[in-house]
């Protein structure tokens, strides 16, 4: 009997909403995700190996190629890399840091959605209390915040594109709310 674990999508059975010409919602590809806790010096040492050097400016993401580091707090970053051997990458990153830090693999805890289109900000604002205007939340800004009652990480990757990361068990709640908030833009 096979003992292989099968990775199940958190979005199985859910219908992702879409509004023609205004909003598309897609599932972000499987990825390596780490929570990094440590000093800015530890983050800089990691950045030298990882690619993007984690920002010390509040609420800013840095990216290089298909890797990204999102500022979540003064000693906390959220790292994203393409799917692969998360343990091996973590070992090589940790080896570059010679001071106390925590680098935790949360690849399978979180999932991501990509909202794209001229109404993406409006649909997010249906349940997120932040000012998502271009001046208050420019491209490259990232933060932990709320989508209704669910904690999310919000990253503006383009003028009309947002990446939303959250715990996989919130998938049904968040997709349902996005669909509800998208309805008024479908007219």
């Amino acid at each position, binding site marked *: 009997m096979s003992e292989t674990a099968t990775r199940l999508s958190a979005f199985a059975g859910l219908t992702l909403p879409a509004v023609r010409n205004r909003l598309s919602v897609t599932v972000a590809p499987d990825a390596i995700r780490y929570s990094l806790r440590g000093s800015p010096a530890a983050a800089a040492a990691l950045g030298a190996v990882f690619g993007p050097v984690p920002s010390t400016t509040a609420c800013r993401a840095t990216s290089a190629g298909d890797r990204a580091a999102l500022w979540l707090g003064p000693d906390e970053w959220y790292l994203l890399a393409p799917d692969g051997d998360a343990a091996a990458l973590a070992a090589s990153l940790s080896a570059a840091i010679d001071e106390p830090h925590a680098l935790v693999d949360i690849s399978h805890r979180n999932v991501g959605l990509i909202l794209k289109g001229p109404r993406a900000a409006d649909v997010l604002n249906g349940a997120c209390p932040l000012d998502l205007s271009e001046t208050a939340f420019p491209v490259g800004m990232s933060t932990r915040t709320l989508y209704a009652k669910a*904690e999310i990480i919000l990253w503006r990757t383009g003028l009309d594109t947002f990446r939303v990361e959250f715990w996989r068990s919130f998938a049904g709640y968040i997709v349902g709310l996005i669909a509800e908030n998208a309805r008024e833009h479908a007219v």
Partner: protein
Amino acid sequence: MLLVTCPYCGPRPEIEFRQAGEAHIARPAITCSDDEWADFLYMRDNHKGYMRERWRHVAGCGRFFNVVRHTVTDKFVASYKVGEEKPAIPAEAAAGPRVEIVR
């Protein structure tokens, strides 16, 4: 919407925060008396007016910080990081409309 200024993230919606009680309550030494320990655990000023409070940006950067807030009008006048110098408490007149609680 009430905005609370996080000293790390800037002005953010109140719903992202949690109040965490009176600030600047130092933990007494392990050799303290039971009364001192009870004071530390349970006794708070809880007065009407400006107070220094701990808040946490729980759905943001996650950090604890301190504010000066009026406990009647809910007016926030200062936010500062843990360890930073305490800002002055404003004169009561600056608290905004006075709310009288009638019993």
